[in-house]
């Protein structure tokens, strides 16, 4: 958590200070993509090296996938409906 705050602040500083070469700031998408790929690689190692998962893959693989899908879809649905509701309410508010 502390790490994230420091990284965010440092990145913001790098992006704000005018003396930092544009070349560095333009690297930001590469940094994000590189970080994501490294993280996903780490996630892979976590799965592959976890004997609880590899041994019981048949038993837990399917239910884990279903639970992942349902919780993602549910989160999307809840927030989607909430956003729609607020958009409608704000529109009516501005028309009054």
């Amino acid at each position, binding site marked *: 958590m502390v790490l994230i705050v420091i990284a965010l602040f440092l990145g913001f500083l790098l992006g704000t200070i005018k003396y930092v070469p544009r070349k560095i700031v333009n690297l930001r998408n590469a940094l994000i993509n590189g970080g994501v790929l*490294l993280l996903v690689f780490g996630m*892979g190692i976590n799965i592959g090296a976890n004997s609880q998962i590899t041994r019981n893959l048949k038993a837990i693989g399917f239910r884990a996938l279903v639970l992942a899908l349902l919780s993602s879809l*549910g989160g999307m649905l809840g927030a989607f*409906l909430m956003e729609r509701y607020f958009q409608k309410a704000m529109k009516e508010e501005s028309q009054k």
Partner: protein
Amino acid sequence: MTRYIVLSLSLGILCGYWKIIPSFLLQHFHHLVDVALFVLVLGVGMELAANKKAFLEVKAWGWRILFLPFSGMIGSLGVSFLAAFFLPISWPETMAVASGFGWYSLSGALLDHLAGPHLGATAFLANLLRELLAFLSVGTVFRYFGSWATVALGGATTMDTTLGPIVQASTGRLSALALLSGVIHSLFVPVLLPFWVRFL
């Protein structure tokens, strides 16, 4: 990018399974993850500085943005509850697993400790898959379902790991919303998860 994500994941699984990486290196593995996270969030910080869209987005929604994580969490738990009807798993178990909101390291370890290795492994894999799903579908979800759905999709992970892809997909607009939603989701994981375990 999707192709590279799948490739990187597969490579990781094989490296882990075949134990290609020596154990003395694996011990320091969490440092690598920290570095990856640092680099990623550094990029996000630069993006935040590069445009002011994120601040305008927060200003437009005002106090309403607090409802984003809460509607996301309620939707997530509500829909996950349905799994208890057709999977060989009890409802407190589905709720406990779903309460990880994608934070697989914490939810896996917590449930391993509280409810045994079987549910621990299920929570670990389910939440890891949720994070992976977010990585892969952020762009599509943003295009077809809008801002809030994109942020809620990643659950607790939008404050660090999936923050980068969300910022890229929304060209910086959603960075503040994602950070806030991720932090609130994360705060509720250690509260909600042990709560469901009591009903097991």
